[in-house]
């Protein structure tokens, strides 16, 4: 019962702040609203027993991505005022399209017979950290190593784009 209440609280937090992020009149407001969304998602992960995922969500999204977005807003201050307003001008078509997508996805998920397991990601362990670490360095060793190549290449590319062409 407590879990149910917690879930609905977090769910309302996520949906509400995400909606505000989409319709907020100022980008900064939208950004801070999104921060609350990320926290709410972390809460849902925690309820589901994914402790590591919840902490990572806070660290990466709230700590990293959020700061990046705020910096982006601050550094592009020369943008004319009218572009900063993200208020929905055509909210009715957006509402209809979004509603239809929601109905289709919700309907499909609801009417599917899911193979439900009673076990949580934790299993018998007290924390998922060990299992994730083990998986990354055994079964998923190759993708894990490849991720470093991906990050390296993207880092080099981002630096190149930020610096501009060598003259």
């Amino acid at each position, binding site marked *: 019962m407590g879990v149910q209440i917690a879930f609905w609280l977090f769910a309302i937090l996520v949906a509400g702040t995400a909606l505000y992020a989409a319709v907020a009149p100022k980008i900064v407001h939208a950004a801070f609203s999104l921060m609350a969304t990320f926290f709410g998602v972390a809460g849902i992960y925690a309820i589901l027993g994914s402790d590591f995922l919840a902490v990572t969500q806070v660290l990466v999204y709230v700590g990293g991505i959020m700061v990046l977005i705020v910096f982006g807003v601050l550094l592009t201050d020369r943008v004319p005022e009218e572009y900063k307003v993200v208020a929905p001008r055509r909210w009715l078509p957006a509402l209809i399209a979004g509603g239809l997508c929601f109905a289709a996805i919700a309907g499909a998920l609801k009417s599917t017979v899911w193979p439900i397991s009673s076990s949580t990601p934790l299993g018998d362990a007290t924390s998922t950290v060990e299992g994730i670490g083990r998986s990354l360095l055994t079964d998923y060793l190759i*993708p894990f190593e490849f991720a470093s190549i991906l990050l390296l290449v993207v880092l080099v590319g981002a630096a190149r784009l930020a610096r501009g062409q060598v003259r």
Partner: protein
Amino acid sequence: MTPFLPLLAQETAKLEMSSMPDLSRMLPGGLLCLMVIVILVVDLVRGKGPSALYPKLSMGAIAVAFLMVLFGTVKAGAVGYGGFPSLDPDALSRIFKLVFLATGFVTVLFVERSRQAFGREAEFHVILFGALAGMCYLASATEMIGFYLAFETVSYTGFLLAGYKADDRRGAEAGTKFVMFGAVSSAVMLFGLSLVYGFTGSMQFAVIAEKLAAAGSQPALVLAAIFVFGGFAFKAAAFPMQWWCPDVYEGSPAPVAAFLAVASKAAVFAAGLRVLTYGGVSGSAPALSHLMGHDSSIVQTILICSAVATMTWGNFAALRQSSLQRMLAYSSIAHAGYLLMTASVIGTDKLGQEAMAGIVFYFLIYLVMNLGAFYVVTLMRRDAGTADISALRGMGRRHPVLAVSFAIMLFSLTGLPPTAGFVGKLQLFWPVVAKGYYLLAAVGLVNGAVSLYFYAKPLREMFLAAEVEGEETRLAPDGVDLAIVTAFAVPLVILGLFGWGNVTQMAMDAVARVP
């Protein structure tokens, strides 16, 4: 269905040296990853910025990797830690790797020939090797995490290459549009993959194929199929995710557009062929293509609808174009449509295998004709400073070798005999007709006829249009340019006349899985 154990509760292999993956089977890909680091270190040690050394280094390394793939033996079974199937360097991935590496080599060559300064920057080559490594991984990945990582690597490096000249306004626009569409389509695909994982509880394609076949039709799986297709459609520039393609190809440097049009597209089709037929050809597990009931599978319906929309949109939109680079972008969309049309008859039967071989064969031909055509665009941008078709006016008289070679490429892209493009189209259409999808094949044929009109436009400019005094074509190809163009045109005729039997056999061997 029995409840499954989540990912983390699965038994993992013991932590010992004998569980290490067989690295010798990943050597070509490993070399590509190593080159990313080598070029960075060379740049760091030299500390002098751009140099003619990097293109040479790149071409050398790509050539070595190409030979390693070409002469390496193909063994059965997947590679991974302790037998976990991370990737499968089989015959199918081998032939696609050859396509990626050949395209990468040619791209570096084109950038050098275009005399654009960025081709000598170390960063360009780092990104290119990252892209090639991602493509090679994508073509052989057999579980979802590696598949997604490789997919994103190909996407991100594509964004970086397309926006490489970001100080140029059109380059910046190309890069930004590509990122926006890429981010949305990745999110959509990831949601689809998460549904598949939620339903099957496994990342491995083999297990997923089995569980999906046992599950039958479920609404969430239909949704997943649509969403995952969205991700594939983005990279293949297929409807409804093709909108970025013309702007990106036009805004990118011509050699980069060539790389995206051939290698990127081949990579996503390589992954698509694997996903569609996983475990099906060898008969061990049911094919994913049959996951929602047999002949009227939802995957097939999606493929057919997208194929029809893609080729029709690509061909009709190409009619109005006056820029050759933009026209080739629409042409590449149309070609994705033809390939999807044939992909819709892929299956475990003999006809399905012929369809797969047809797609592989077409990529081998497409590589030659499309890269050749993009080289002409590279020359136009270099010498005339524009990709407008009118810049070709009078070329038939002034540079007959270049004009005739380009004409052969255009004939081949249209699919006219006696070029290799004709044989390729034949192999794409044959399985569709043999399966009895006459309407689909008819739509394809009508599209082919429409494409004749816009491919003829450059021909008219080159051979028929009268030159205006003082406005002669500014193209000034030197001996090397002519040699390159001829090297792309001659194989098209040879393959179209008598050499195609060998290539067809190559394609058939590639799709017949190693026993």
